[in-house]
């Protein structure tokens, strides 16, 4: 075994008390909440703040999904900032009701409304009293001050709010399984659905962005795209036989935790099923939750994955990778990269406090040739400073690492969100044996492409 590379490189100088952020590797909380609300049937996300927040986030999300993303705003002006945003919030919800006819409005706050002290639950309570004679949609609110946490906090917060605010009664046992999938792609959600169907269980996946953020070409502009987790199903999540939440870096309180505490729905917290062993865990958990053994289809998929890993092992063995992005995605990638012999020399995330270091140690333990250096709360400037000396062969993460990859003449394997400089980010599959295989093919081919490009003569056989 080679000596761990990460131990031989000089560590960067101690950081001063405050370091400004350059090229952040995170997004703000309301963006995550907007994405999660978008995965509920008939729902429209609503940002309580100034107009710019909604527009910027729409633009950012559209560039990845290439779908219309309508996010309403209370469009606060200066007077509202002084006297409170309540009237605009109410008016905004009424206007959205008129124009979009939603069955749910997902209200997320912003730094502005958190700081001026708008009491959103109270404003919404007043709203329901004032307009009780109208056919009101459900309104779920989440507190997402953008000066606290990252987009993943917004995502998980919105999911928890949906569960806690909609699931108020204990539903009759319905034999379903709740899956809280974390921030994965539309294709990932579709795959999770397939897997559950093959296990013969109806899964309530919350949120389900598979159709709402990757819809078909249609005759007309639909105000709210079809798909998403049905509201009735969310209300019945309390009657499920179990919950499975995917993520090793989740907040202490989540939708799954709430359902267990309030209704005794057993909560399984496992990592994102990325790579062989984390996918095994997911399927084992499904076996346990459903009592159904793993269908043969997945035995075959697993077998194919292992076969491919054997066929391709030499091309990737010992390659040095820098991995970055959301904590759980990074942990999942580290799990898989360890299995195929790629050395993760740096695993970075803009979030902090969720134990990415612990999660990475857990998922790579016993397999990884080196312990990846884990950096939490970092930006691209920090990561670049380290990567200069770590000399990676590969970058694996979202599009925003592109300029660095280009600067170092190192290929970038694009995964996660956002993918702004390539096509089809929403259709990338990462989860399960199939997702691992797809990722493996991409990584191997990326390495081969680089080798061909760097070769003086080129070669036609591997």
């Amino acid at each position, binding site marked *: 075994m080679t000596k761990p590379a990460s131990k031989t490189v000089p560590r960067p100088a101690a950081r001063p008390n405050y370091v400004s*952020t350059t090229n952040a590797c995170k997004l703000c909380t309301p963006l995550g909440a907007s994405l999660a609300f978008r995965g509920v049937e008939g729902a429209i996300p609503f940002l309580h703040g100034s107009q710019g927040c909604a527009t910027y986030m729409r633009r950012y999300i559209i560039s990845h999904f290439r779908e219309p993303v309508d996010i309403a705003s209370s469009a606060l002006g200066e007077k509202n900032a002084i006297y409170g945003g309540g009237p605009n919030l109410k008016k905004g919800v009424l206007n959205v009701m008129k124009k979009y006819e939603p069955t749910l409005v997902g209200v997320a706050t912003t730094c502005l409304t958190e700081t001026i002290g708008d009491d959103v639950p109270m404003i919404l309570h007043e709203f329901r009293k004032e307009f009780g004679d109208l056919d009101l949609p459900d309104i779920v609110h989440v507190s997402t001050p953008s000066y606290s946490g990252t987009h993943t906090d917004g995502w998980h917060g919105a999911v928890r709010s949906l569960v806690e605010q909609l699931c108020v009664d204990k539903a009759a046992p319905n034999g379903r399984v709740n899956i809280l999938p974390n921030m994965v792609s539309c294709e990932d959600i579709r795959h999770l659905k397939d897997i559950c169907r093959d296990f013969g269980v109806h899964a309530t996946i919350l949120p389900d962005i598979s159709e709402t953020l990757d819809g078909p070409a249609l005759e007309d502009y639909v*105000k709210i795209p079809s798909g998403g987790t049905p509201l009735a199903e969310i209300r019945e999540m309390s009657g499920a036989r179990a919950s499975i939440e995917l993520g090793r870096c989740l907040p202490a309180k989540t939708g799954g935790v709430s359902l267990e505490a309030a209704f005794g729905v057993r909560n399984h917290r496992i990592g994102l099923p990325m790579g062989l062993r984390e996918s095994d865990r997911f399927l084992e958990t499904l076996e346990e939750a459903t009592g159904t053994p793993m269908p043969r289809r997945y035995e075959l998929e697993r077998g194919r994955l292992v076969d491919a890993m054997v066929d391709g092992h030499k091309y990737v063995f010992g390659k040095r990778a820098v991995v970055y992005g959301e904590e759980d995605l990074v942990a999942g990638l580290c799990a898989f990269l360890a299995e195929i012999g790629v050395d993760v020399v740096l695993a970075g995330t803009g979030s902090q406090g969720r134990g990415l270091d612990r999660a990475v140690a857990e998922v790579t333990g016993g397999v990884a040739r080196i312990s990846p250096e884990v950096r939490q709360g970092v930006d691209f400037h920090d990561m670049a400073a380290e990567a200069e000396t770590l000399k990676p062969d590969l970058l694996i993460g979202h599009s925003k690492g592109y300029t660095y990859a280009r600067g170092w003449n190192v290929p970038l394997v694009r995964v996660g969100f956002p993918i702004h400089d390539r096509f089809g980010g929403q259709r990338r599959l990462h989860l399960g044996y199939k997702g691992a295989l797809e990722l493996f093919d991409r990584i191997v081919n990326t390495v081969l492409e680089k080798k061909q490009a760097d070769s003086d003569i080129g070669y036609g056989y591997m």
Partner: protein
Amino acid sequence: MNTGILEERKDQIHRAGEGAIDIACNRDSLAGAVSQRACVFCGSRVVLYPIADALHLVHGPIGCAVYTWDIRGALSSGPELHRLSFSTDLQEKDVIFGGEKKLEAALDELIDRHAPKAAFVYSTCIVGIIGDDIEAVCRRVSESKGIPVLPVQSEGFKGNKRAGYLAACKAMSRLVGTGDTSGISPVSVNILGDFNLAGEIWIVRDYFRRMGVEVVANITGDGRVADLARCHGAALNLVQCSGATLDLARMMEEQYGIPFVRVSYLGIEDMADSLYQVADFFRDKDPGIVGRTQELVRDELSMLMPELARYRLDLAGKRVAMYVGGSFKAFSLIKAFRHLGMKVVVAGSQTGTAEDYAELEQIADPGTIIVDDANPLELSAFIKEKDVDLFVGGVKERPIAHKLGVGFCDHNHERKEALAGFAGMLNFAREVHASAMSPVWNFVPRRAARVAESGEEAVND
């Protein structure tokens, strides 16, 4: 489908030829209307962003900086400091105790690291609420570091995008007049309101070079702090775009007596007119300039026109909807589309003024829908009503058009094609052609039914 326009938005929509235009504009976006518009911060950020040797520090929570990271395709011929995204990344404790110390530390650190020629500090919503005195911090850092450190009062909620343009112009006006103007030609201009998307300002600068006009400062595409500092030495300001830099031109007229003219580099007539306006202005100082300009325009057109004619064969008769940032751009686009035989039937903007819309109505065909501060449902309703073949807009408008099976052309700050100048007109025609003539429209549900009915290919209908 309920496509009704919200009552409060009715006076922001007008149909050309149906009575006197009295369109409401420049008001705050309506709550819950899903406006396509951003905020004051956005307005400042997009104007100042291309100044490539300045540090652009966003004082606020992380989102404001992230969503504007390298957002414009504004190219630089040298430094690229503008392409990095700097933020103070305000956290909860800063909101409680104030963010001034953090801002000062960030400026100290970043100025030492990058040695910029100046620094712009953008104020965001949260900073306006917690009341950080960014003016004082900027003054202190400016003294200690010896470079201009300029506050930009761009709190997101204090108006709409136009207010951001003004904040940007105010910040730039502090730089103007601080540099040495010696050696500047009497036949000289500043280019205002071009952001050098895909290198457009280089096309325009080349025309001025051929005319014998010195360009003192690019404001702000491929911009430099030192050029801004001495740009008051130019004889004339050329202002493109409806509002972004007009305020700066007015300030310079008042303070330095520099006249300005409004120009546009988009489309054939407007490009030629703009060059002739400049030639006319300088004809007394340089009698040969008119001839040189005529020759330039003739040369360029002789190359361009035959090419355009080929695209026109396919495109004639097609209908266009456009929704752009500033409405001034819409004038040029309407004329440009006429050259391609196409008809603009919807023209909207995020930040048009009353005068802009009045002028737009003058050049628009009767029945053209003119709209201020629209939203997805309105835009999709207009696309259907007018049965358009092509939509021109920005990133947020693209999926609306595509979902409806309508071709789309990017004409905002993220485009990667140079559309300015005579060369740009050709690029534009090529892109319009590729967007409108693709066979994919045969297969989208909206067109597929029609194709089946007519038994023809949709693109040839």
